[in-house]
């Protein structure tokens, strides 16, 4: 019974923890401009994150080594160091976006300017990182994030023309009002939002924190393979809501109110309250994950003591890194930059950085010294290699597309 409960909890937190500010913003912008015609990019991203999150978790469970230790060992101090600089910077950008997301969600609930909420969010995130146990922070944020199921409910309440939605998703064409470059730019953004590298840093380090052994792998596989696709479905629901309500009327506003508008139309105030609660939980959870990832990446590269399983004083530099990262992130937000813009940049730069993380994981997952007889099977390697091709194409295309379209135009 308790095993079944544990399994259910794992799946539920995977669903609730899947969405972050990057998915919320990108999917809503895409929904209102392209309808469901970019659904394939989200699906591709979900397949990719399932594959590589699972792989990094398996490496962590079998060898006890988290992702950035492996990056350092495989790429050496120089290339690994360049990788660290890029990954840390992008993770910092994502952390900034997530803290901004908490503030924007609270602004939506209170009409108080988001900059006043930033210090509140900062202190709350830090307190949780400082004092709360890993398992608790992971489960609570994930379960509250489940409120976002209201997104899927809202799609049903609106009673859309399902045939039309399916046609948009399955026979995608670039809408006449948009250019091909814009279409491709947002495809890369959706892919980057789904596959953000911090998820793998967090997932593999979390496996070490929780002391996974090969026996936990079946459970983690179910969590990932059931939870992430259902989370991806919520991401598609946001795009669908945009396609149903906003696209026909040509409405484009601030991205988070753009999520809220159709939900309010479908389910009234109650649905809106549930949505905002879900958005606060999802962005808060992701802020915790990115905050931890800033500590994980740096500590693992340099070989410092790290982890929430230790007291802060037993992982001093790890905690100091997280504090400074949070302060820098909040500082960026206090300059008055638009958190939505920060988010858009963070997902595109994530796409650029994807190969830096995923290539070393694929290499080590095939190394018998680390994995013994648990190395990748042929199918996983085939899928992993194919996905890597997509990852590299997206990474190479991201910056040129950003320049051509003026960041989405």
């Amino acid at each position, binding site marked *: 019974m308790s095993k079944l409960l544990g399994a259910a909890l794992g799946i539920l937190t995977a669903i609730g923890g899947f969405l972050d500010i990057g998915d919320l913003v990108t999917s809503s912008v895409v929904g209102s401009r392209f309808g469901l015609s970019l659904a394939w990019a989200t699906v591709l991203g979900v397949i990719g994150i399932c594959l590589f999150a699972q792989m990094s978790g398996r490496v962590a469970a079998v060898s006890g080594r988290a992702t950035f230790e492996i990056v*350092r060992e495989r790429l050496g*101090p120089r290339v690994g160091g360049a990788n660290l600089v890029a990954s840390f910077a992008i993770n910092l950008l994502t952390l900034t976006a997530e803290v901004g997301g908490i503030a924007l969600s609270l602004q939506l609930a209170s009409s108080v300017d988001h900059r006043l909420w930033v210090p509140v969010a900062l202190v709350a995130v830090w307190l949780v990182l400082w004092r709360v146990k890993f398992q608790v922070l992971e489960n609570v944020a994930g379960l509250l994030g489940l409120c976002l199921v209201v997104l899927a409910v809202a799609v049903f309440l609106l009673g859309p023309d399902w045939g039309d939605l399916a046609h948009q998703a399955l026979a995608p064409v670039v809408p006449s009002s948009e250019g091909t470059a814009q279409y491709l730019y947002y495809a890369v953004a959706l892919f980057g939002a789904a596959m953000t590298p911090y998820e793998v840093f967090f997932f593999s380090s979390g496996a070490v924190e929780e002391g996974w052994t090969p026996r936990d792998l079946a459970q983690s596989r179910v969590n990932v393979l059931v939870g992430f696709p259902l989370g991806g479905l919520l991401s598609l629901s946001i795009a669908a809501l945009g396609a149903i309500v906003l696209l026909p009327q040509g409405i484009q506003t601030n991205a988070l109110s753009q999520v809220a508008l159709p939900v309010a139309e479908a389910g009234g105030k109650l649905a809106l309250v549930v949505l905002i609660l879900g958005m606060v939980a999802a962005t808060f959870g992701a802020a915790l994950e990115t905050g931890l990832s800033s500590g994980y990446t740096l500590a693992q590269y340099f070989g410092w003591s790290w982890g929430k399983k230790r007291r*802060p004083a037993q992982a001093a530099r790890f905690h100091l890194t997280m504090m400074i990262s949070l302060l820098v992130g909040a500082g960026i937000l206090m300059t008055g930059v638009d958190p939505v813009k920060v988010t858009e940049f963070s997902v595109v730069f994530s796409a650029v950085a994807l190969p830096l993380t995923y290539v070393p994981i694929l290499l080590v997952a095939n190394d018998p010294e680390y994995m013994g007889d648990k190395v990748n099977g042929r199918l996983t390697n085939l899928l992993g290699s194919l996905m890597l091709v997509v990852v590299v194409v997206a990474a190479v295309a991201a910056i040129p597309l950003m320049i051509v379209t003026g960041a989405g135009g």
Partner: protein
Amino acid sequence: MTGDERPLGALVDARLHLLSRQVLDDDDVPVTTADDLELATADGRDLPLTGDDEVVVTAILTGPSLLTRVFGGRAPRSHDSAVPWRDVAALTTVVNLAVTWESLDVTWPERWVRNRVVGRIPGGRHDPR
């Protein structure tokens, strides 16, 4: 950990199996990464080496050695921050030490941050709840 400890006398490629590996203390607390190695001849003779000299690893270097590994060049010997090789207990996919991390000179930055910053913030020395 996969596999057993490498048997005594097994062939270890320093570049592949030592450099950039995680170093753990006797309680599996991460200490540092093996940034570089200090080598010496077995009979203590100085450079130049001949083909007959037996070279042994005398210490795992860290700190400033990372900078020279990344940017090249040589740091003065007085700047070396080293874990003596006699403290090494086992080699697997990590380097296991036989001593506790607090007894090592190389962990001074960690101890400094703990004593001056993190340990002074309320709750810093308590288990997370």
